[in-house]
């Protein structure tokens, strides 16, 4: 009969490697995830800030066009800037009616159902 509880002698280096095996996979994964989250958040914040700045910069012109009730010109303007920007832009009234849209003009006149959530740190609302 052989002894089933026979002790295995491992070199110290191998012993450490065996003990740390889970960390060898886990730690890089966690670090990679954290970096991805960090990069993702940074990119999102950059985009959000850039879009916000962009919207703020065109807002006075849109406001003038709204004041003069010139939807054809608002629509033309939105089409032009959103094509350059590569983003869809909609103008929403205080009563949540879509006044102009570069995304789908069929939405104009319909209620905006954005279900917006506030992001306090970024001073933004997103859906």
């Amino acid at each position, binding site marked *: 009969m052989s002894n089933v509880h026979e002790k295995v002698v491992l070199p110290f280096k191998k012993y450490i490697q065996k003990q740390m095996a889970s960390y060898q996979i886990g730690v890089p994964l966690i670090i990679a995830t954290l970096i991805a989250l960090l990069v993702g958040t940074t990119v999102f914040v950059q985009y959000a800030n850039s879009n916000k700045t962009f919207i703020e910069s065109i807002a006075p012109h849109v406001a003038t066009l709204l004041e*003069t*009730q010139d939807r054809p010109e608002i629509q033309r303007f939105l*089409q032009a800037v959103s094509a350059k920007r590569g983003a869809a832009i909609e103008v929403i009234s205080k009563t949540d009616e879509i006044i102009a849209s570069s995304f789908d003009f*069929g939405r104009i006149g319909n209620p905006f159902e954005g279900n917006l959530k506030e992001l306090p740190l970024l001073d933004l609302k997103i859906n």
Partner: protein
Amino acid sequence: MKFFIGIIVTLIIVLGIVISKSSLASKLISQKNQQVYVKAIYSMPVSYDPIKMNDGASLIFSELVYEGLLRFTEDYGVQAGLAELWSASDDGTILTFKINPKAIFHNGDAVTANDVKVSLTRNVSQESVVYKYYDVINGAKDYHAGKAVAVDGLKVVDSNTIEIHLEKAFPPLLYVLAGATAKILPAKLVAKKDFFKKPIGTGPFAVQRISENKIYLTRFAVYHSKLPQISGMELVMMDQKDAMEEATLGKIHDLSSWPMNGQEAVFKSGKDISSIVADTWVIGLNARLKPFDNLEVRKLFQQSFDTQKFRDTFYPDAKVAFGYVPPSFPGHRTTKLETVSKIEKPPRELITINIPAELDKSSEMAQFITDQFNAKGWNVKVVMTKWDKMMAEYSAKTLQSFLVAMIVDYPDPEFLLNNFESTNPDNFSGLNDPGVDSLIVQSRSTQDRIKRQSIQLELAERIDGLALSINLFHSRAHYWVSKCVEGFRPNLLAVAYTDYRNVYFDMDCLRRGAK
């Protein structure tokens, strides 16, 4: 093992190719088999001549059969029509158009700059009802007045290039050139006596036959731009009730020319394509005829009608109209204009209001209008008139009062407000007000956009103050199309500009329907 993996990968690729090819083939077959599209219209076109068009059915026909240098996009912009390129001089007074060399008429003749010159010359002739839109072209006024034999401002540069010289820069002229009246007709045929019995254009559909109540159109196979997918169209004249019945039975595919509110039973069996539209429904008052020649009578007449009740009864999702100009156009009113008549008692003269007989609820509307006015002491009679007859009398300015939808044909309110210019042949109200005339001239000659809009605001206020119409509401369109119709995209300006080149049938849906 590798051998089997190779076999499986190859099989997947082959299967993918077969599936994609068969789907492409079935799509092509499906397009080839597209059937004739049947669209109901409330009247036959009052005219087939673009220079005499001012009713909806005529404009629908014009957009299908004819083509201008430019076309409207679906959201107020302009795009290429017969012109493939266009430019303006630095001072904006010369517009140059390069005609697409592929553009041909339905009879196979190439479109030339001379065709454009002759067609636009017709637009400023004495027989044109739309002359006012074009009078900024150099020499147009002299030609219209018979003082010149040609229009100076229309210059043929070569067979494919034309220049339009303007008295002053007027960018909105591009809208006019994209509109339903600036269509190009064959110069050598247009003057022939029977030309408009079977007119020839350059549009996506060619006239096959015109009968008493039907227009048969076929897809123009060598159309120079995007080829329509449907093989043809039939425009069928009928009243709204019959049209809705036929649509329910699947015999009509399109009721978009009807003003519907989306609550009609027919919407259970089709699509409701809802969209804003630039119009104002009005009861127009003819100030040429008694008693509406009196401003105070007009004001009292306006005050006597409960527009909100009318709107809630017949078009509940329409918007309130405080003024004549539709929403989102300079001059649109957002608050009620408080006008109080100096007289309290209505005159006893009989007032006749004409309403289109073809409307689904015309009888109910007639009763509603009669009751409203007569309860306030007026002597009103509402007459339901066939649309073509009503339009003929409208053009002759013999109607005392009438219910119509005023559509902004171009995305600039000046073209709506100049209906009130004393010299405009389309002046339905008969207004002759030097203040209004002067503001229209100012609007036309002002290039600064904001200044121009403030003039238009003043103009709209002045017109609203003159009580020439009871502004009922600004409608929200509900276009009914068959559930098997795809690609129908409304035009924000007017239904007449709907681009039927994009419309097609879902053939599987039609087959399922047939079973």
